């Protein structure tokens, strides 16, 4: 077996030492720090991105909260305005209704007064007519000239019966 031939043991060990030592030093000083830098750089970048993403998310949440607040406030304001408008309208309507009622009442009372007045006038006319008719009738029948006062007196006393 060539492996057990000690002829080249020293040569093998020597070159192994040379090459392995070179490899070790080279990797330790050059290659591995290089890879480590890249990995570190990438990790930093990832961390940075993550933290900025987190920040942005927080900002977004804040903005969303603001929007919600504003929406709520707007809703409340709208509700209040609607209520106010309804109240104002109701007041307006009721005041208009009441003024209308007053108007109507006034008109009714005016009409009543007018009716009463015209009734009175009519009654006066009727009284005059009655007095005239009575004067004429009595004059025609009895030749007695009745004075207006007498006739009116009689009519006044009997007024209740045909009023």
């Amino acid at each position, binding site marked *: *077996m*060539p*492996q*057990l*031939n000690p*002829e*080249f*043991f*020293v*040569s*093998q*060990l*020597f*070159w*192994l*030492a040379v*090459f*392995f030592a*070179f*490899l*070790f030093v*080279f*990797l*330790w000083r*050059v*290659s*591995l720090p*290089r*890879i*480590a*830098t*890249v*990995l570190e*750089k*990438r990790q930093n*970048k990832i961390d940075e991105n993550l933290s900025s993403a987190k920040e942005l998310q927080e900002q977004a949440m804040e903005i969303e909260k603001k929007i919600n607040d504003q929406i709520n406030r707007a809703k409340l304001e709208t509700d209040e305005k609607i209520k106010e408008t309804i109240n104002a309208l109701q007041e307006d309507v009721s005041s208009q209704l009441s003024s209308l009622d007053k108007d109507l009442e006034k008109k009714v009372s005016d009409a009543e007064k007018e009716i009463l007045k015209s009734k009175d006038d009519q009654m006066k006319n009727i009284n005059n007519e009655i007095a005239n008719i009575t004067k004429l009738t009595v004059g025609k029948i009895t030749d007695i000239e009745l004075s207006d006062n007498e006739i009116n007196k009689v009519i006044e006393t009997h007024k209740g019966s045909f009023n």
Partner: protein
Amino acid sequence: MAAKDSPLKQFEIDPISNIELGGYNISFTNSSFAMLITVLVITLFLTLTVNTRSIIPSRMQLISELMYNFIAQLLSDTVGDNGKKYFPFVFSLFMFVLIGNMVGMIPYQFTFTSHIIVTFALAAVVFIGVTILGFINHGIKFFTFFYIPGVPFYMHPLLIPIEVISYLSRPISLSVRLFANMLAGHTLLKVFAGFVVSMPFFTGVFPLAFIVALTGLEILIAFLQAYVFAILTCLYINDAYHLH
């Protein structure tokens, strides 16, 4: 032993240029050449793919990062925060064994991890380093590593020698595991390759198909052995920090 057609011929070392230093033969051999290729592949790959240092990695850069994270994860899982210091060493060890095995999978290419002297040297570095580390961390108390608490006292005369022997056999088991796997796999491939040539007519396709499947398995083993070597190193480092 190494006849012309022997499956073990592939493990023979041929000097490329003869060098002698202080009376020792340190010839640059095919084994040294495989190590050179391995080191070049690792250093060039890890350097060039991460050259742009881009945050969004290219596919090749991703491979380098995957290897980095693979060993970093392994080390932090087994040793914890103490392990960070040993990351360059464990990473170098893993890459050296892994690419050494992979370079060996190229046909006609020498596999230096199939030589016990190489694997033993690597295991010895780990063993001696871990032992020194244990004494640095715990001083003389490191010997209590062999004392298992919670065992009846009369068992200790039996258990302490077992613990000592198992501790001392670590470099042997670590190196023989890798060496034997590589040796067996490459020998098997060579034996079946011999069948492809020697079997009559078209029947040679059967060992050929077997070789194709076995090559896949060998690549898996090449990775697995590098992983085992790295994870055991991590566990030994952990032992140097945490006694029983």
